[in-house]
């Protein structure tokens, strides 16, 4: 037996990372701000995105959304009611979106050219673990959590929160009856991702949306 060690030192997700880099360049040169929205199932990503799309359209913005789910196009139909172009990505059992799925769904998207968009939102599959490993070429990764989920969620899922660029707390309108400890939640987010921008929102009342929209505009100009 003649054994030998062959050094490889290559990223396991090299193919995904390379494609994500290509997508990122494409998004930058098209002038579209791309955001990857990640949360548990039930946090209210779709409601938050729906409100965001409506408000951006009302302010003359040109948003679009790709929405990932294991099955059904329910979310895409719900979001399309806002008037923005929306395309569903069904992963058929896969627990996360990857760069290849994004590339495939950007191709042949009727009526949508990247150059004609200001914002592209990617609503990831509801999951706080797996999506954190996959770069989609986004500029901003947004971690969402709702007031019903427990203030220690950032501590339980540090990888996602640590790799996020912005955090959104949803359902603030029911914070009080839920006994949500706001200070503790903010402190926990900050412990995992110091200095991150945090938006306290309600898709129902519209609280915090103004600040969120201002942030989007600001990030698009960068």
């Amino acid at each position, binding site marked *: 037996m003649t054994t030998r060690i062959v050094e490889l030192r290559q990223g*396991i997700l090299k193919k995904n990372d390379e494609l994500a880099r290509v997508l990122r360049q494409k998004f930058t040169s098209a002038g579209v701000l791309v955001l990857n929205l990640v949360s548990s199932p039930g946090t209210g990503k779709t409601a938050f995105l729906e409100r965001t799309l409506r408000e951006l359209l009302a302010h003359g913005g040109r948003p679009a959304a790709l929405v990932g789910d294991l099955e059904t196009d329910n979310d895409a139909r719900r979001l399309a009611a806002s008037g923005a172009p929306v395309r569903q990505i069904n992963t058929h059992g896969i*627990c996360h979106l990857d760069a290849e799925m994004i590339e495939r769904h950007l191709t042949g998207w009727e009526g949508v050219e990247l150059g004609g968009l200001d914002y592209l939102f990617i609503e990831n599959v509801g999951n706080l673990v797996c999506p954190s490993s996959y770069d989609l070429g986004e500029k901003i990764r947004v971690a969402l959590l709702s007031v019903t989920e427990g203030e220690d969620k950032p501590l339980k899922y540090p*990888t996602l929160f640590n790799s996020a660029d912005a955090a959104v707390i949803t359902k603030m309108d029911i914070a009080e009856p839920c006994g949500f400890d706001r200070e503790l939640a903010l402190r926990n987010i900050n412990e995992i991702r110091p200095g991150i921008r945090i938006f306290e929102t309600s898709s129902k009342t519209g609280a915090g949306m103004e600040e969120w929209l201002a942030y989007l505009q600001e990030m698009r100009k960068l």
Partner: protein
Amino acid sequence: MHELSIVSSVVDSVTESAAAYPGARVLEVRLRVGALASVVVDSLEFCWGIATEGTSIEGAKLVVKTVPVVVWCEPCGKASELEGVQSFRCPLCGELTIDVRQGRELEIESIEIDEAGEAGKAGEAEGIGKTEGAEVPR
């Protein structure tokens, strides 16, 4: 639970790399997985058998080395290892830091191959000595 996808990517890459050594058998595949990689080592090991079955690397052993998180602290001017991932504070001064220098790794470090492979079994029986390749320090 994306460990099966991760392991499948490993199998693809290793199969590809091993193809450069015709007739060789892959004995071991060594991974480096960061504490912040969101990957469960037990699940990787569990999926390994399933993912390698029927491939050219079937029977190879999977060895996973976990890599702790290392952060850089600006005020201290030092890099330190974190004990956990519940708080991103410099263990020396307690200051919060966003500068993660290590711990996100998800990579194939190396593979160990038997160059004689199947074809070399006869030679092995005849007492041809074993030469162990030296591991290059990182």
